[in-house]
């Protein structure tokens, strides 16, 4: 530690100077005392380290006078090796050696900046992850204000009437958005608000709800999920996932199950008719019911003809539905049943033909069209099975 006595101290100041010198010497912050011209009078060891310069090279040199708007200024210190480090500067007007001077306090911000940079990186990483998800995700503070929303959330808002994100973007209150909702899901609003508040207050670990959210031209279903925001800040993470496809799929499976049960009932009826027939006739009307026997395996060409005829009827039925007409498919269905009867077809053959036809028709069709094939196909298959049963029964009674 060195000192330039460019102005001799007075006896009155000597005591105060000694105390100040002791403080400067022991401070962990960098401290420099500059005179009224900004020249270095005193520099402590920490300041030497910060500037990578020896006190002997600093004393008497023009460091400059501190100029601050507030209490603290952020500056860069230029080290002897040319490197720059960020530092916080504070200053106080003092008297040193009986003359006006400035005490400059310097604190290294390198570590603080590194931490901030790391936090920014971490935040950027989290944001990148959230933006890579297709779920619509928003983070709410404890008052329900949206503090962050991912790209999918913003995109959905833009596409659904809030292009400027004024009512559903960051800064908007999600509780208020829900409370003023006037669409189909408004009946769910009290449940949603209650669920979110209970999760926020720790009464529920999670709140989930499936709700309809139809657009003007499409039926849509969403799954909402609210989980608490873990960490120092209380809040909620809200996600909405479009589950329309899953719903449609589940509905199609249920439809298929219903159809299967109804076809099984028809099959039992058909078997009963066959049994009666066997008792009355020498030959069986329906084909032998071996496990590996079917029209598809025994006579693929005929099976393909049946599929084509069935598909044509199905196509007509779906087209008629599109024009809100009653489909005129009764006669071709009855004719196909007769043809199937002549081939000694069984219920299993009808089911296989039906499924093969659905597969070929649905390939590449729109979701609405696929839905129509499913619904019309169910009716058609049952109708066809009914005619086939009637065909065999008539045969029996002949």
């Amino acid at each position, binding site marked *: 530690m060195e000192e330039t006595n460019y102005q001799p101290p007075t006896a009155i100041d000597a005591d105060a100077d000694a105390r100040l010198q002791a403080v400067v010497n022991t401070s962990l912050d960098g401290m420099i005392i500059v005179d009224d011209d*900004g020249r270095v009078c005193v520099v402590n060891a920490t300041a030497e380290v910060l500037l990578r310069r020896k006190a002997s090279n600093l004393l008497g040199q023009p460091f400059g006078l*501190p*100029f601050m708007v507030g209490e603290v200024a952020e500056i*860069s210190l*230029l080290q002897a090796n040319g490197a720059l480090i960020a530092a916080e500067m504070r200053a106080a007007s003092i008297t040193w050696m009986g003359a006006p001077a400035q005490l400059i306090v310097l604190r290294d911000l390198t570590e603080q900046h590194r931490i901030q940079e790391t936090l920014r990186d971490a935040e950027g990483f989290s944001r990148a992850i959230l933006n890579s998800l297709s779920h619509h995700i928003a983070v709410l503070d404890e008052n329900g204000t949206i503090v962050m929303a991912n790209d999918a959330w913003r995109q959905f808002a833009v596409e659904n009437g809030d292009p400027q994100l004024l009512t559903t973007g960051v800064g908007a209150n999600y509780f208020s958005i829900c409370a003023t909702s006037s669409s189909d899901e408004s009946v769910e609003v009290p449940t949603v608000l209650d669920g979110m508040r209970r999760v926020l207050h720790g009464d529920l670990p999670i709140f989930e709800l499936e709700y309809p959210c139809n657009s003007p031209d499409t039926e849509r279903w969403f799954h909402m999920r609210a989980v608490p925001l873990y960490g120092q800040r209380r809040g909620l993470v809200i996600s909405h996932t479009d589950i329309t496809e899953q719903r449609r799929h589940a509905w199609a499976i249920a439809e298929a199950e219903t159809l299967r049960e109804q076809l099984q009932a028809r099959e039992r009826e058909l078997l009963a008719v066959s049994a009666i027939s066997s008792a009355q006739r020498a030959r069986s009307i329906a084909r032998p019911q071996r496990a590996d026997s079917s029209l598809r395996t025994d006579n693929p060409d005929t099976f393909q003809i049946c599929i084509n005829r069935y598909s044509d009827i199905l196509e007509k039925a779906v087209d008629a539905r599109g024009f809100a007409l009653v489909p005129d498919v009764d006669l071709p269905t009855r004719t196909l049943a007769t043809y199937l009867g002549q081939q000694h077809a069984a219920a299993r053959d009808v089911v296989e033909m039906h499924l093969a036809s659905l597969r070929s028709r649905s390939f590449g069709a729109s979701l609405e069209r696929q839905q129509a094939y499913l619904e019309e196909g169910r009716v058609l298959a049952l109708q066809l099975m009914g005619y086939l049963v009637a065909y065999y029964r008539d045969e029996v009674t002949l």
Partner: protein
Amino acid sequence: MSTIVLQLFIAGRTPRTERAIATLQQLITDRLGDYPCELVIIDVITDPQQAEERQIFATPTLIKESPLPQRRIIGDLADTEGLLTALNLPPVSMS
């Protein structure tokens, strides 16, 4: 009438340095418009030689080269009124 020469030492273009430059340019236009004025901006990153020759220890540093007495200040250069006082500008003999 001697020219007012100001030298501003900065370390790269950051929002802080941009703000300091804007304040100085505004100060020159609004408050020193009646005086011949020169503002020299030196980036210590691209011109370390100048920084060494002028014994620059921190940025931003603003030096009033002339008129004498020379004045050197460091810190937030964001207050035009305060800067005028700190730099003793406009010079009494010139006003």
